[in-house]
């Protein structure tokens, strides 16, 4: 019986990948568990194992082929077991064995991978596996929106290149490491593994193990060592595999890094960057899905940055590394694989503490940051179709907060919605609402509305997760409410 073997997906959001290598050839006999091929995305490499037994009859997609859609038939197998178990299965299920994806003990990275160029329209000739419509996917899809307003920091006539957020972060670190020997990066899997999310890809090769340092799994310890090294005159970049794990290290981030300059009367500094993915990813459950933006943003002595697109990721990470203050730099895993335009400049550095107008509008202001910006822009597009002209502001820095930009926009539109992928209580959205009330009260024509995740730990089930997370539809509903439209 002929069995169609399809291109597997490494993650719920993957749409295509590279067939890097065949480990079998036509005529080979395979049995369950044999590795047949290596599949790659920009994030990960996966060994594709056989589930069925049989003889390879035809290889349909050659080695080295890029952009192979998930679900494409890549080979055919002559099954040997027809009737053995009464099996009528005619094809092997596309989803890959997760254990084969990354052969380590890193459940975070294992469970999560994304792909490049997945903002491409799906090829209808190769219908992909049935995709579960998840909340993360909605956010991921929306995160393809570029700013409609050119960043004023980009000089006129600058060439723009499209790179992923992941590449932008890596380039920022590499450029600053080239410029300043005091800068080094440490964290779990940052060196030999090339980064749990491949953000530090290539850094070990360029800078060597003195400056790109794999740590044991020991967040409290290496956050303290990083902070101490900063006090001792170096400029560490400490990567947390995710900010969820930084809870084990939060003592050093707050008690050691944030407070030292003040407690020492300004004589002992702690110029350190704590960076890594923050917020919900895709289907990773409550312990791996939390936005710590409001936590850190409440702490005097810290700078907190949460960029949305690649240009901001690069320009702000470079600024963070140069800063003599401790910085918490909150990235978003769903955004890593997203491509955006970045100015091609030798030294693209952005000011910390300045929000950015992503889209100009006159009817309502939508304030957001990180992945929420994509949802805000998507909502704005849809609202435009209904005659509502929304202005979208990306806060970019959560501390210090750019109140002026927010209040100036409020003065123009008189209505405000804050979109935040995170919990509602004591959120950045709460803070913006308070600022609007205290300092922009006379400009308000309607109460400020918060569009946030539901006030529950993030559930695993796809339908519940989708219900819990922010979405463009929720933004649209809130905007209509503050505009008194139905």
């Amino acid at each position: 019986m002929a069995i169609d073997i399809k291109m597997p997906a490494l993650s719920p959001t993957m749409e295509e990948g590279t067939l890097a290598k065949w480990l079998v050839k036509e005529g080979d006999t395979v049995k369950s568990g044999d590795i047949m091929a290596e599949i790659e995305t920009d994030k990960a490499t996966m060994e594709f194992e056989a589930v069925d037994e049989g003889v390879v009859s035809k290889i349909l997609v050659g080695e080295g082929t890029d952009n192979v859609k998930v679900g494409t038939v890549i080979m055919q197998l002559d099954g040997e077991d027809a009737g053995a178990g009464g099996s009528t299965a005619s094809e092997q299920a596309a989803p890959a064995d997760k254990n084969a994806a990354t052969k380590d003990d890193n459940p975070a990275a294992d469970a999560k991978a994304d792909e490049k160029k997945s903002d491409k329209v799906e090829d209808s000739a190769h219908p992909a596996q049935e995709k579960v419509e998840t909340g993360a996917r909605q956010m991921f899809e929306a995160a393809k929106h570029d700013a409609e307003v050119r960043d004023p920091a980009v000089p006129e006539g600058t060439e723009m290149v499209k790179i992923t957020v992941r590449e932008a972060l890596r380039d920022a670190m590499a450029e600053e490491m080239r410029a300043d020997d005091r800068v080094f990066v440490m964290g779990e899997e940052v060196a030999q593994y090339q980064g749990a999310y491949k953000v530090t890809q290539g850094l070990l090769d360029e800078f060597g193990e003195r400056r790109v340092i794999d740590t044991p799994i020991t967040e409290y310890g290496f956050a303290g060592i990083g902070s101490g090294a900063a006090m001792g005159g170096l400029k560490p970049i400490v990567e947390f595999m995710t900010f969820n794990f930084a809870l084990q290290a939060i003592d050093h981030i707050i008690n050691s890094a944030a407070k030292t300059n003040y407690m020492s009367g300004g004589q002992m500094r702690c110029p350190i960057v704590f960076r890594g993915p923050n917020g919900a990813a895709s289907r990773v459950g409550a312990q791996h899905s939390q936005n710590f933006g409001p936590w850190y943003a409440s702490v005097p002595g810290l700078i907190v940055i949460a960029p949305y697109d690649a240009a901001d990721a690069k320009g702000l990470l470079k600024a963070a590394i140069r800063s003599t203050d401790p910085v918490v730099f909150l990235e978003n895993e769903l955004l890593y694989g997203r491509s955006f335009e970045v100015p091609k400049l030798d030294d693209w550095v952005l000011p910390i503490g300045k929000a950015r107008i992503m889209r100009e509008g006159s009817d309502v202001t939508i304030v957001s940051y990180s992945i929420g910006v994509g949802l805000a822009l998507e909502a704005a597009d849809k609202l435009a179709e209904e005659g509502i002209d929304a202005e979208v502001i990306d806060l970019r820095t959560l501390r210090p907060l750019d109140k002026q930009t927010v209040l100036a926009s409020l003065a123009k539109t008189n209505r405000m919605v804050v979109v935040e992928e995170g919990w509602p209580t004591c959120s950045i959205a709460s803070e913006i609402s308070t600022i609007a009330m205290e300092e922009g009260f006379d400009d308000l024509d309607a109460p400020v509305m918060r569009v946030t995740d539901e006030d529950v730990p993030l559930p695993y089930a796809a339908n519940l997760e989708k219900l819990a997370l922010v979405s463009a539809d929720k933004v649209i509903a809130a905007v209509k409410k503050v505009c008194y439209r139905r």
Partner: protein
Amino acid sequence: MAKAPARAPAPSEPPTSNRERPNEPQPYAASKDELLKFYEQMLLIRRFEEKAGQLYGLGLIGGFCHLYIGQEAVAVGLQSALSGDDSVITGYRDHGHMLLCGIPPKDVMAELTGRQAGISKGKGGSMHMFSVEHKFYGGHGIVGAQVSLGTGLAFAHKYRNDGGVALAYFGDGAANQGQVYESFNMAELWKLPIIYVIENNQYAMGTSVNRASAEDQLYRRGESFRIPGLQIDGMDVLAARGAAEEALAWVRAGKGPIILEMKTYRYRGHSMSDPAKYRSRDEVQAVRDKSDPIEHVKKLLSEQGVAEDELKKIEQDIRRQVNESADFAESTPEPEPSELYTDVLVEKY
């Protein structure tokens, strides 16, 4: 009953170890001048701390105030062996270590009274004092934090290849914190130049070592990380200095971290309000009578023929210095209200 620290520690080598070990430290053969210096430094700390206790009683010092009285030989002996490239970090019982780093007593005392002229402009207080200029990196209020931070200082020394060593002090209480062992692991893994000094004063607040530590021989706490440890009489400044010599030789040879467990004793309460119910007055008195580190050196000096008058003069000088620093700390102004908002961040954004 009294638990006076033993003068001669038992040989600390595990019988089966085939790893390289540091040599068993020998008491330092101090010259008369060096001995006088040790005496002077220990006495300065003692008188300074006594004065701080008085100012606390008068309400001039607030909050927490952890005195170093009884433990003077540890910091004096160890820090006398350091070079200008080395860095020091400790917890909140930090006044003595600061004085030994060369920070003027009046700057420390003015910080204790919360004045603008204090080393942290009055914004740190007893537990949070620093002087990067003197390579003293705090002064940390979270038990055990200085162990990871100190390991970071050692990391910086190695990264810069500047030949410096980090000296990280912590107590028997901090020795049970998890981050201590996370730091031990990385320090040995990366062969960082650090001396971990466990100041075992027998009590973590009111909990004695053997009520808190399954392995109460704290010098062994590095064994599972292959970090050698030495148990030293911390009431003997010459033993402390001798241990520092061995430890520095080990670390400077690139052999990685080493642990010194300094058996010592705190005469005063944990902080200023201490119930004193967890040990008897007799126990404290017995240590003072038998093992006082200052009396010990005084005796050695007498044996070397130093006249009583000379010691008196040192004592008078120190009293004058301490009184001056107290007068200064009482009279110098509090911070300007505008200082409230300075130093939160270094840069403007």
